C-alpha cells in the first residue's frame, strides 16, 4: 500500500476528483491547505508591519492505494490537474505499513 499525497490547484480539484472516480479510484481524504512552491514570494504590509505572506490556497488529496495503482493515480492527477503554469503542484508517494477500517474488525489490506 502507498499513500499518494497530491497538492493541486483548488480550481482543478473537481476535474481531478471526477477523473479519479472515472478510473475507479474512490477513497480519498481532502484538506484545504496553503502552499508555496516555485512561485515568487510577495511581501505584504499590514498596519505598518511588513508581512511576507506568499502562501496560496491549495488542495491536498490523500489516497491510500495498492502499489499497483500508484502510477495510474499519478497519471490521472497529472492529466487532469495540469494547467502548465507554475503552481500546478506536487505529488508525493509515501509508504504505508498497514491499513484498516474502523467499521469492521477485519484488517483488510486488499481493500483500501
Amino acid at each position, binding site marked *: 500500500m502507498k499513500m499518494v499525497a497530491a497538492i493541486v490547484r483548488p*480550481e482543478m*480539484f473537481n476535474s481531478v476528483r471526477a477523473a479519479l472516480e472515472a478510473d475507479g479510484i474512490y477513497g480519498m481524504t481532502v484538506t484545504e491547505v496553503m502552499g508555496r512552491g516555485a512561485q515568487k514570494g*510577495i511581501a505584504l504590509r*499590514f498596519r505598518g508591519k511588513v508581512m511576507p505572506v506568499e*502562501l496560496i*490556497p491549495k488542495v491536498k488529496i490523500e489516497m491510500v492505494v495498492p502499489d499497483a495503482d500508484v502510477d495510474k493515480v499519478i497519471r490521472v492527477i497529472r492529466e487532469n490537474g495540469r494547467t502548465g503554469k507554475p*503552481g500546478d503542484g506536487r505529488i508525493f508517494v509515501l509508504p504505508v505499513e498497514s491499513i484498516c477500517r474502523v467499521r469492521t474488525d477485519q484488517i483488510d489490506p486488499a481493500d483500501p
Partner: protein
Amino acid sequence: MVDSGDTAFILICTAMVMLMTPGVGLFYGGLVRRKNLISMIALAFIAFALVSIQWVLCGYSLAFGTDIHGLIGSLEYAFLQGVGMGGDGIPDLLFAAFQMVFAGLALAIVTSGVAERIKISSFVVFGLLWTTLVYDPLAHWAWGGGWAAQLGALDFAGGTVVHISSGFSALALALVIGKRLGFGGHGMEPNNIPLALLGGALLWFGWFGFNAGSALAADGLAANAFIVTNVAAAAGALAWLCAAWVRGRPGSLGMISGAIAGLVAITPAAGFVGPMAAIPIGAVAGLVCYGALLFRVRRGLDESLDAWAIHGMGGIFGALATGMFAVAAIGGVNGLFYGNPEQLLIQVVDAVVVVAYSFGVTFAIAKAVDAVMGLRVTEEEEYVGLDIAQHGESVRV
C-alpha cells in the same frame, strides 16, 4: 416645511440603503473563490466611498441640477451649494444623502462583471468615470426632470437607473476585461455560502429603505411600497427555488438570488402596483432571471456574479411589468392591464434607451481605461488572488 415624520423615515431609509453596499460586498464575497473574498468586500466599500465624495462635489448637481435639454443637470448645486437644511417635506440635504446611497450601491453592483480580476487603481478611475458619465445622467433622466420623466416613464425606486444600468454595465465590463483564467474548465465554487446569505439578508432588509423610502414620505404609498417589496421578494425566492428543484436540488443560493430578482423587478413598480400584483411580478422575475443565468452560463459569458442576469434582466422585466400592472388607484397611472397600453410602450422605450446607453458608454469607458492603464491584473496576480495581490491580506483557511 420639513415634516419630522417624513424626515425621520428618510434618514433611517438612507442608512438602510447604505447598509446594502456592504451587503452586496458580502454577497459577492461569498460567491467568489476564497482568495478573492476580501477583494470583493473591499471593492464595495471603495465604490461607496468614491461615489460619496463625487456625489457631494458634482454628482448630485449633475443629476438634480436644472435640466439641460433633458439630458443632464447643471452644476448649480456643485459642492452642495444651495442645498440646505430646509426643504419641502424633507430637508434638501437629506434628499441629496438619500440619492447618494443609491449611486454608491449602483457602482458596487457593477463589480460583479470584473470579480477576481480587476486592478484596484483602474477600478478607482473607472468608477469615477462610470458614476459621472453613466449613473448621473440616468438619475437625471428619471428623477431630475430629464427626458424620461418628461415622457412619463415610471421608475419608482430605480429599476432602470440602478438595476438595468448596473446590470448591463457589468456585462459590458465583463466583455472588455475578458473571462477569468480557466473559466469554464476550472471549478469556481462559492467559498462561503453563509456569508452570501448574510449579504442577501442585508440586501432584503435595506431594500425596504430603497423602495419604501422612495415615496419620500412616511405615508400610505410608502406602506404599499413596503409590502409589495416583501411579497415580490418572497415570490421570487420561492419561484427560483422551485425552478431549481425541478432541475436538481433547491439550493439556498438560488433561493436568495430569486429573492433579489423579485426585489429588482418590484423596484420600479413599488409605488404603482398592489400586493396581489407583486406575486406574479416577483415570481416571474425569479424565473426570468434564472433563465437569464442559465443562458449566460451556456453562452460561456463570464459576467461572473450575475449582475446582468439578476439586476439587468430583472430590471427590464420590472420596467415592463410596471407598464403592465400599474393601477391608478395606487400611483395615479394605469398600465396595460388597466387599459393603458401606451404606458407599456413608454416603459419599453425607456428600458431600451437605458440598456443601450449604459451598455455602450460603459463599454467605451472600460475600453479607454483598459487602453490607458490596463483594467486587469497580471496572470500571476490573478493566480495568487486579489486579496494578496491587490490588498496584501488574506483569509485564513
